[in-house]
């Protein structure tokens, strides 16, 4: 906990880290849904102009079609967007928050040349590693939960207004997304950052490379969802959580081995 405590104080005083931690959840949870529902004028569109979307609706899985059966096309579109289409975007929060903190915590110590005295202490490699993983993991989980609360508020504001007083969140899919998939994907991001940090000298480099690896995977998920290939229902969320847990086990195993004192300091010499 000592490493966690020290890094936590440092993070709280670093606006370069605090800014994305606050900005990303706000953008995803508040600005994105507000933007989607205001710019194209979806809320003010006459129902007749949305008839072309019926084809898209027909491609959706049967269970979702059943959920929107009683709604008109405008209500169905809003429901699907709030409930399903924005869900993968939400995963950007744990990924980005953990990536920003982990890259600063691992590669940042190297860049600021503080790692040498830290590694000279009798703190074991596993204590060091765990402390640094926790300091990236805990804020990302907190940011995800706060984002979810904000998003639920915004989504329910729209749903109450447009779906005849219906509160659409929380539901099982989103609870699984927030409490199972998000922490798992945060660990994937941390695992990647740790491995990349061992190879690079600067935290920005570490941040860009690890985000550059994970973001295309997330984009694939977003497009698959939009195209109706994969819909984030409870089963898919659980399947992704289990799959990523296996990936995390491998990533963190490699991360621990690349976090050896000798390995890190050899790069500084």
């Amino acid at each position: 906990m000592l490493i966690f405590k020290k890094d936590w104080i440092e993070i709280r005083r670093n606006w370069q880290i605090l800014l994305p931690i606050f900005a990303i959840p706000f953008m995803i949870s508040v600005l994105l849904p507000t933007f989607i529902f205001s710019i194209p004028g979806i809320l003010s569109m006459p129902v007749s102009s949305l008839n072309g979307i019926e084809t898209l609706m027909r491609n959706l899985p049967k269970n979702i079609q059943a959920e929107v059966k009683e709604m008109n096309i405008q209500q169905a579109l809003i429901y699907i967007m709030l409930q399903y289409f924005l869900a993968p975007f939400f995963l950007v929060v744990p990924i980005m928050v953990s990536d920003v903190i982990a890259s600063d915590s691992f590669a940042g110590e190297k860049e600021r040349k503080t790692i040498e005295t830290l590694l000279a202490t009798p703190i074991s490699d596993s204590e060091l590693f765990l402390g640094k993983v926790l300091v990236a993991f805990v804020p990302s989980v907190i940011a995800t939960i706060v984002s979810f609360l904000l998003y639920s508020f915004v989504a329910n504001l729209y749903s109450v207004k447009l779906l005849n007083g219906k509160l659409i969140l929380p539901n099982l899919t989103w609870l699984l997304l927030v409490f199972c998939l998000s922490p798992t994907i945060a660990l994937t991001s941390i695992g990647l950052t740790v491995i990349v940090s061992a190879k690079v000298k600067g935290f920005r480099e570490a941040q860009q490379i690890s985000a550059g690896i994970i973001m295309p995977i997330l984009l694939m998920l977003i497009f698959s969802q939009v195209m109706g290939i994969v819909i984030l229902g409870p089963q898919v969320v659980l399947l992704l959580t289990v799959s990523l847990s296996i990936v995390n086990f491998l990533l963190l195993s490699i991360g621990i081995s690349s976090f050896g004192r000798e390995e890190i300091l050899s790069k500084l010499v």
Partner: protein
Amino acid sequence: MQAIETIELTKKFGNLVAVDKLSFEVEKGEIFGILGPNGAGKTTTIRLLACLLSPSSGSANVGGFDIVKDSMKVREIVGIQTENPSLYERLTAYENLDFFAEAYGILDSQERRKRIRDLLDFFGLWVFKDKKVGAFSRGMKQKLSIARAIVHDPDIIFLDEPTSGLDPESAREIKDLMKSFSRKGKTIVFSTHVLGDAEKLCNRVMIISKGKRVALGALEELLTNTSKPILRITLKKLDQRVIDAIKCFKQVKEVTVADSSSVVSIVLDDVETITPEIIKSVVLNGGLILSVNVVNQSLEDVYLKIVRGGKVEN
């Protein structure tokens, strides 16, 4: 009693041999200096002894513990001040020391507070205890990094260029601190470029070049063994005939003439026996002597001679 013992300690980085079969011992309570030019292997030697790097071959015992098998024990009993201050700039001076004190196992917060107060008081930093280290001057950071190295009261202290970047007053404080630690039985190993520091502080020094040991012993001893007296003759006018006559003596090791002057410096094996003969020869060859002095080689001269000579002493 030995605090440190190394046997053919070697560290390689790929094809580069940074430390090459280094064997030496440091006595308990000794101030031991490691001297050498940039890239000689001083920092790598300190990193090996502080268990920041593991050796490629050879072995070392620090405080009775093997640096490979008992690296955690070694870390507990040593303190290290690295080349860079390596401080957390977003933490205050107090928070930096508090973190390291706890990391080194001082779990009682009252004990930590007392220890930190004593150290910050000693270095004149207590008034700045709540200031973030990022706002500190280079000298203040250097003092704080030394305070951090000794916050857990270690038996063996490694200091890498401890007076670098300090004003003369602060440098003197550090040197006084090192002496007081030595009096308390603490062992200090420090690397430096400042030969004067080594001369004033060290019981013994080791000079290394390209990772190899080129000299080891008390500085006075090294000076006596390596230094040769210089006969310095100031002439009214420089004449090549005079120089040639001086060079004819087999006891003369080296003759140098300072640029744009008529001062001839002659390195001799035995100054007492041969000086009258050289003076006589200078006069006979038409040299008009203004003054004659016998001087000893400076510490810098001896150091450069040893380092440039590069002869490895075993």
